[in-house]
């Protein structure tokens, strides 16, 4: 990477996007058919997932090769940065929809079902005696008896883990910029290890939640009314994003081992770091609004 091009790199044709398109067709058709109970669904889903993985390896492989070959100039680098930043912005809005549902349910739906505002008769005629307090699985107590998930214990430990991983990735980034390879690999490795630990603990927490109260669990499921819905959808999508983020961290860890990044040129690392911080911030929102308040 002695010198980079002065021209903006435009690839002339690429097979990977259409492979990704085929993957999405198989995957979406598969999931939809499976939900309809069609036997073909599972196979199509599996085929779609395989093709999607093939596409991810192929597409990222090409981009990494081009990057290592020094084809990208600074302007291309800026495009990647902006693209990643706006992708994260769209992800923020995806979570905003579910946070919005949580706030709307807590602040408006439940009080109204309890008769507040101009809803006296809704309460009196449809749900007499229902008090709209949080947490709730609704006036019909959908999902049966459950206990809410408290913030202290595992969720607090998970908060500490995720926040620490935000620190370790920053240390790794400074090490990368200082050219300190040993520190970079150690702290980046620590970061994805903490990420995986978080996912593992989250799985433990889910298992605990799903056990019946009689078995010492919480009896809390996705079907536990609006509380269960918002709890599992928010933490579930967050967990998926942590898994994705940890996978990305592992990929760039291997790239660090191979020496792909230089102190000046390491968008791949920074993009993943941004994503990791985004996942971190979402968790703080979850910890405060889903677990604590």
């Amino acid at each position: 990477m002695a010198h980079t091009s002065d021209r903006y790199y435009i690839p002339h044709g690429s097979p990977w996007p259409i492979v990704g398109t085929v993957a999405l067709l198989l995957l979406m058709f598969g999931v939809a058919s499976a939900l309809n109970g069609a036997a073909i669904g599972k196979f199509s889903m599996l085929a779609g997932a395989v093709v999607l993985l093939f596409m991810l390896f192929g597409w990222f492989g090409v981009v990494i090769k081009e990057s290592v070959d020094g084809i990208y100039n600074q302007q291309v680098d800026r495009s990647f940065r902006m693209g990643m930043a706006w992708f994260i912005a769209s992800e923020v809005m995806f979570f905003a929809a579910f946070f919005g549902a949580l706030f709307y349910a807590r602040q408006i739906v439940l009080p109204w079902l309890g008769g507040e505002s101009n809803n006296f008769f809704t309460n009196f005629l449809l749900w007499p005696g229902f008090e709209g307090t949080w947490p709730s699985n609704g006036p019909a107590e959908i999902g049966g008896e459950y206990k809410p998930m408290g913030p202290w214990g595992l969720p607090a430990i998970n908060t500490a883990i995720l926040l620490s991983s935000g620190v370790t990735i920053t240390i790794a980034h400074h090490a990368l910029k200082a050219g300190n390879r040993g520190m970079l690999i150690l702290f980046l490795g620590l970061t994805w290890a903490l990420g995986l630990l978080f996912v593992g603990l989250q799985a433990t927490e889910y298992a605990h939640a799903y056990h019946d109260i009689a078995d010492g669990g919480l009896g809390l499921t996705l079907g536990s009314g609006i509380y269960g819905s918002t709890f599992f959808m928010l933490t579930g999508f967050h967990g998926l994003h942590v898994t994705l983020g940890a996978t990305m961290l592992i990929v760039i860890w291997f790239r660090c081992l191979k020496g792909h990044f230089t102190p000046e040129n390491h968008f791949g690392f920074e993009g993943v770091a941004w994503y990791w911080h985004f996942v971190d911030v979402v968790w703080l929102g979850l910890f405060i609004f889903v677990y604590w308040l």
Partner: protein
Amino acid sequence: MSTTAEAHHDHHDAPSGIKRWIFATNHKDIGTMYLVFSGLMFFTGGAMAMIIRAELFQPGLQFVDPGFFNQMTTMHALVMVFGAVMPALVGLANWMVPLMVGAPDMALPRMNNWSFWILPVAAILLVSTLFMGGGAPASGWTMYPPLVLQTGDAFPFLIFSVHLLGMSSIMGAINIVVTIMNMRAPGMGLLKMPLFVWTWLITAYLLILAMPVLAGAVTMLLTDEYFGTSFFNAAGGGDPVMFQHVFWFFGHPEVYIMILPAFGIVSQIIPTFARKPLFGYDSMVYATASIAFLSFIVWAHHMFTVGMPLAGQLFFMFSTMLIAVPTGVKVFNWTATMWKGSLTFETPMLFAVAFLFLFTIGGFSGLMLGITPADFQYHDTYFVVAHFHYTLVPGAVFGIMAGVYFWLPKWTGHMYNEKLGKLHFWLSAIFVNVTFFPQHFVGLAGMPRRIPDYATQFADFNMISSIGAFVFGASQLLFVYIIWSCVRGGEKASTQVWEGAEGLEWTVPSPAPHHTFEVAPEVR
């Protein structure tokens, strides 16, 4: 630079055959594919509109059963919004934004390919639902629960189709933002950018912020249906109205997503044919940004009748009224641009002027609908149908058609047939009014939308409306013929094409070569 890079740069001829299209990374090729796809969807959705108008030609049930009628109203809207209008605008952006800012291509060419090719997949998933058990979705394009949860096998296909359309839009929008922010030629300052570029930049921000919310909303529908969640189930502490809030938080920005780029097109065309610079360029930019901002805080004006507290109704009424201010700025600026200009009325200008008049009608009826107490009367009547069709057909669609006529010579290197273009314009402009203007009357008199039958007092106006729709629909075949013959041949277009045309896109030859501005032009 490595040798592979040299090889890439020197390989300048267009790839041939099917690979040119499925492996495409060229913004012009991808733009063309977007426009062709949009055209196909325009006629698919148009055919559904014809079925709707045929059924409504007379009172009583004639051709289709009510269930199928509902499928038609739902699919017509989904196909037109996500299949025709949005892809057409993205196609125009793909073609024109790099040319207008002096960029060699879109910033992320491979992702550009993916953004496009996801669309046909989404369309296949969506349109295939017509042939499934229980039929296509029939709950209206707004997909309100609990009705939408009664959809048959089509339900998950609807949801995933919407997800894919959203992915495509978000990736397309990111590409446009990055192209505009990072790929401008030296000297092309932000406030020197053509208005089409500005409106698309702001639209792209709207897409990035609004589409994920739709994805969230339909995901909640999916889990409510299949995984036992209670987001929209009052018995479990949820609320069907909550869906409407989440949906319209996306839905209102969405309507500006469809109109702002059309504003941009008109802002390019009117100065060209008035042979005067755009009046109030800066205020146009600020007005567009203001509309975009306001579009995020007005959503509940679609739901005045669901039982909101008074304070909510007042807030959403006033914030809605406020949109008339920046929109008014734009309308007066366009008018002032024409004032004392050396006007000529070629087809693009005719469409742009018709846009100005007819979109304004749609804007005014929107103001009427924004008045909460009045909306209680208008809600879910044909007045609403008339309103949004005035903003979308002589608004967005006329904007797109104006843009196609305006830029067609640049794309093909040939002038289109001006006589036929004018004929197409007059047929469209007259019959769009014959179609939609009477719907104001039947709506004010109380005819509900999305119903296949109606009381006999609405018969006359409905028949007029249907006749208008048939002629308008048939006229669009003329549009296809004009484009086709322009692609095949015709009078050679000059580099500048139009006498009053200014901007970088008019400095490249007609037809625009496969690669343009590989060395960035200098903008004074």
